[in-house]
């Protein structure tokens, strides 16, 4: 640890770089299947003045990020940080697929397009 830098409050914790370890990483459901790539983070300021990541925003606002802006948080789709169980080369959560609202697009493609085609619900033979 170089001299003169402020001490991080979490002595025994693990340092996670939001940009390097969270943004654009693959989010997995509790079965290890891909949910979506993490598009953005919602960071809130707590009463004690520290900033915490509260939500991982999904697929959402990527176009806005391209232009350096952000969409209003109120209509963001995301999963809570509390559902994260592991931060590795992907981010694992304890979420069931159906409990992720942001996956409505996937459900639409499944129910309207792919599943109705014969064989769509079967394992490849």
């Amino acid at each position, binding site marked *: 640890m170089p001299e003169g830098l402020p001490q991080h409050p979490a002595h025994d914790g693990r340092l996670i770089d939001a940009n390097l370890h969270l943004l654009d990483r693959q989010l997995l459901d509790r079965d290890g299947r891909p949910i979506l790539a993490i598009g953005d983070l919602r960071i809130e300021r707590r009463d004690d003045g520290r900033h915490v990541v509260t939500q991982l925003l999904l697929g959402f606002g990527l176009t806005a990020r391209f232009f350096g802006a952000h969409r209003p948080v109120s209509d963001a789709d995301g999963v809570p940080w509390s559902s994260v169980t592991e931060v590795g080369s992907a981010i694992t959560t304890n979420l069931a697929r159906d409990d992720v609202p942001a996956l409505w*697009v996937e459900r639409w493609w499944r129910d309207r397009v792919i599943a109705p085609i014969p064989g769509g619900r079967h394992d490849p033979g």
Partner: protein
Amino acid sequence: MKLPMAKVAGVSLGILTAIGGFVDIGDLVTNAVVGSRFGLSLAWVVAVSVGGIAVFAHMSGKVTAVSGRATFEIIRERLGPRAALANLIGSTAMTLLTLMAEIGGVALGLQLLTGVMPVAFILPVALLLWLALWRVKFTVLENVAGLMGLLLFAFLVALFKLGPDWGELGRQIVQQTPATGEGPLTYAFYAVALFGAGMTPYEVFFFSSGAAEEKWGRRDLWLSRVNVSLGFPIGGMLAVSIAACAAVVMLPAGIGVSSLSQVVAPVGVAFGVAGLVVVLVGVLAATSGAALETALSCGYSIAQYAGWPWGKRLRPAQAPQFHAILLVVIILGCLVMLSGIDPVMVTEFSVVFSAVALPLTYFPILVVANDPQYLGDQTNGRVMNFFALIYLVIVMVAAVAAIPLMILTRMGA
């Protein structure tokens, strides 16, 4: 060591990947064109690209086997969403162009077998390809297309039957200068085109995603090594045999190859109709294998960029967007080829442009292959990094030179 059979059959992943890189419809024709105009003086380019694709395919296979992350997830993570999107659009466009050409190539092969005009085959070919993507297991696709593609060894057998002047072929390999009547720029253009074809980005997408389809884990790293060290040299050897056949039959006669029928003609000279049928079945397997490979690569890379579930190990309903992409690219390919456009020309363009996109794919793979967070104790050693860096430089040179050479030589005319 007792080898489980399923894993041994897994070597066909490397073979099928290499078929896309070295003997798909564009390469079949380009290799024969090069053989008929330059002899074997460009064989060194094939050798160089075999080494390059082996190094980078192994790295991406290793990343997938150890961390479970596929190539385009990593590209997005390391380049950021914006640069990765540019890369995605570029490489998917190239892969899509190649897919279109392969559909046309299958139709051309069927035309040579049956005598019916190729446009009549486009719709049935596209339908069969989609059915295979929809219903057939990944390992079955891989084994059938990969192993039947080996019928292209007919070119190598034909070369021996033709009984060429080996000394002369050897001189051509060593000579490495343009043949009489060809300018140095044309020579350089074909060098870049062959290199771009051998190292196309979709091979890496396909190889690493295929590794995930086969559920490779840390214990299967040897399988990745076996795959790259068998598959790509086999592909390269087939490519050189095609060029050698053209160099033996066409070059002395002063015939410049311009169609698929001329590509397979030397086998006909050596073995007659039976030989032609065998080699054409090989051509059909190679082109349809490459069509499946490119269609899947489009689906893999787009789904991995977005973070959608992907892969043929899932039911279609479990990876709906992935299967929607497969459906759309097959329909697009089918529509474009129904217009009667020449598939060979389409691949020649795609090969040159993919040379431009190469560095954007290979650089992030090299970075991640050195990241212990992904690979633990399996990060690249010094030797691997040494070769990877050399290839990165070659790739950059090819990327910069590709378009100016294409314009200056008018596509090598």
